[in-house]
């Protein structure tokens, strides 16, 4: 789970507004004062990195890894030649890079603003989780709620812990793949994450083990896991199967404005990994995440990704199809509301014969929201019998909504099958009138049209997520009419 809830204080100048829209980016901000046991202060430097590493009592190889990453971070330019200029508004000196477990917060439930309570209510967030998400409780007592899952999976030999613990207790398992799927220097933000990461989940599923229930980051939420720079590594050994879910549809109330995670998946021969994300960020968050999986022979990796909220999200889950007959799939839904830019997509790198990949992306742009699809499919000449199917559909709600599509498909060789379909549609007046004539308000009609648009993808989410997602779309659409 990577909600950066109210764990951070001011990270950006309030003067740094999204230049493209005149709306108040501070809406959705929600903080309270907490004293942290460990606090690396703000700003980034070798001292920050050393401090984080020492607090975590890390092995020296890990400190060296972090320090090298810091150098890479400094050396790498911002990807502004293709990406939005809004990235330049990130002020790295104002960010706090590490905060550890806090004390009991002073805020009480009565002090939580009514509109936030209402949002939780309408999203159907359980009572206990509401308090945590609103920052009333620093700890979510998840052990009680989910400990049976932990018990069951540990009996199967599954290792499921946070990054710090995992690297300390099982370096023999995790070090081999750590930073290998996404090297430090992959991009500026993966380098940043590599130097200051904390929190996140490390999972190892032994050979042939099929984990029946999805593993949820929920079950061990604590302050650290809500960090901005979490690091996740999932290794599914030969023939094993695992599903991982992160996030939830509740909005995260925070002023921490940079979230930059790295998620690496390794599916060994014949293994299957499904990674599900549903995130709803506050409208002031930069969400810059690198996610990639490595699929060996006959392995399958599937990313199901839903992005709602944030000021700017840049995320392109990828699969490197390394072994013969490996399969990769990315299913993504993005909703860009006023003042938001969802720059999402997928990468499929075919590196073996008879590998197949599927990308289905649906985006919704509301008001002045902007959705960008960026896809990369790479099939080199020397391979045989590879297949890719890419489908991206965009739905525009208002006349000033915007969508762009940048598919980069490089296919060489003559034994491959590649399909690409794209569509842009607009909710039309006649459709809305038709629904209104049946008694739905304009807002309800709009929600229903949007839910219909993403329905075939939402059905692939686990039940509780799809229900929440529908409600969330209803909430997001409410302000879009008039």
């Amino acid at each position: 789970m990577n909600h950066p809830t109210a764990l951070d204080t001011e990270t950006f100048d309030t003067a740094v507004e999204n230049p493209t829209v005149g709306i108040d980016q501070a809406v959705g901000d929600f903080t309270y004062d907490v004293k942290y046991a460990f606090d690396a202060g703000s700003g980034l430097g070798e001292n920050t990195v050393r401090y984080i590493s020492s607090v975590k009592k890390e092995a020296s190889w890990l400190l060296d890894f972090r320090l090298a990453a810091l150098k890479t971070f400094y050396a790498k330019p911002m990807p502004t030649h293709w990406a939005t200029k809004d990235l330049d508004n990130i002020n790295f000196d104002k960010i706090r890079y590490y905060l550890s477990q806090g004390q009991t917060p002073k805020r009480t439930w009565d002090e939580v603003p009514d509109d936030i309570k209402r949002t939780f209510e309408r999203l159907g967030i359980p009572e206990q989780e509401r308090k945590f998400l609103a920052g009333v409780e620093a700890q979510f007592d998840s052990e009680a709620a989910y400990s049976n899952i932990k018990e069951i999976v540990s009996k199967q030999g599954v290792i499921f812990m946070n990054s710090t613990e995992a690297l300390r207790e099982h370096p023999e398992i995790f070090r081999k793949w750590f930073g290998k799927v996404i090297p430090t220097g992959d991009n500026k933000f993966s380098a940043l994450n590599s130097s200051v990461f904390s929190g996140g989940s490390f999972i190892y599923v032994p050979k042939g083990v099929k984990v029946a229930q999805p593993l949820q980051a929920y079950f061990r939420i604590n302050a650290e896991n809500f960090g901005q720079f979490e690091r996740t590594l999932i290794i599914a050994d030969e023939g094993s199967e695992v599903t991982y879910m992160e996030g939830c549809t509740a909005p995260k109330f925070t002023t921490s404005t940079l979230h930059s995670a790295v998620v690496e998946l390794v599916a060994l021969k014949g293994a299957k990994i499904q990674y599900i994300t549903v995130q709803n960020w506050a409208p002031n968050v930069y969400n810059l995440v690198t996610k990639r999986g490595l699929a060996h022979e006959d392995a399958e990796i599937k990313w199901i990704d839903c992005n709602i909220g944030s000021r700017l999200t840049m995320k392109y889950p990828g699969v490197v199809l390394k072994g013969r007959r490996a399969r990769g799939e990315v299913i993504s839904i993005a909703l860009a509301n006023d003042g938001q830019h969802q720059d999402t997509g997928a990468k499929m790198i075919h590196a073996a014969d008879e590998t197949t990949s599927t990308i289905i992306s649906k985006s919704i742009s509301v008001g002045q929201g902007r959705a960008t699809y960026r896809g990369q499919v790479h099939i080199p000449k020397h391979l045989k019998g590879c297949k890719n199917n890419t489908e991206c559909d965009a739905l525009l709600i208002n006349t000033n909504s915007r969508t762009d599509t940048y598919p980069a498909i490089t296919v060489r060789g003559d034994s491959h099958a590649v399909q690409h379909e794209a569509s842009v549609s607009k909710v039309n007046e006649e459709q809305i009138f038709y629904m209104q004539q049946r008694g739905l308000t304009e807002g309800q009609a709009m929600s229903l049209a949007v839910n219909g648009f993403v329905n075939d993808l939402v059905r692939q989410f686990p039940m509780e997520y799809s229900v929440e997602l529908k409600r969330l779309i209803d909430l997001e659409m409410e302000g879009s009419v008039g």
Partner: protein
Amino acid sequence: MSSLEIRDLHVAIDSKEIVKGLSLTINSGEVHAIMGPNGTGKSTLSKAIAGHPDYRITQGDVLLDGRSILELEPDERARAGIFLAFQYPSEIPGVSIANFLRAAVQARMAEGEELEATAYYKRLYQKMDMLKIDRKFTSRSVNDGFSGGEKKRCEILQMAMLEPKFSLMDETDSGLDIDALRIVAEGVNTLRGPGLGVLLITHYQRLLNYIIPDQVHVMYDGRIVKTGDKSLALELEARGYDWVKTELAHA
């Protein structure tokens, strides 16, 4: 007992007046047919009553049980009991008929009141049985890829579920084949009763072979120019709309 009263109604699209002073009162339990040549304002009338934003009412009034509905939003009019069976119903991809109707039924409930799923489906299946509609039908997306007949069936089912006080059925020029015609006719005849008033808009007399109207109105150039019983429809069929035009010219 309800009434829908259209009083000296004038309707314009952009600045062009289409309906030019039309008056008509329908009571519960009555079926009125409006016939007329193409472009005479029949569909405009139904859209304007339902509150389509492109149709501007420049004069006159529409009263439901004595109260004007012109200030109401389209959805408020719908919830007040006005149903429009569309000539060309919109497609809503990804939304099943069952879920769409559920949302529409829910919209009619008081705030905080939750629709009870079991009871809803029981009622839905009752209506489907009554209209001889296959159970699988409601799992399809609303009108998405439907044939003309299926669209009509979908409209009739919605009408049955929403139980309006008045149904405006716009069948003009829709080129209904004989199947679609029967679906509409059987639907109306099944739902016909003391609680429902129907305004049936049709270009051809043949629909009236299946639905016997209480009154037939001939519309021409934005007005009702002749009213009679079902024999008027037959006379129209025999003599054509030119007869009306000629008669008007002499009047």
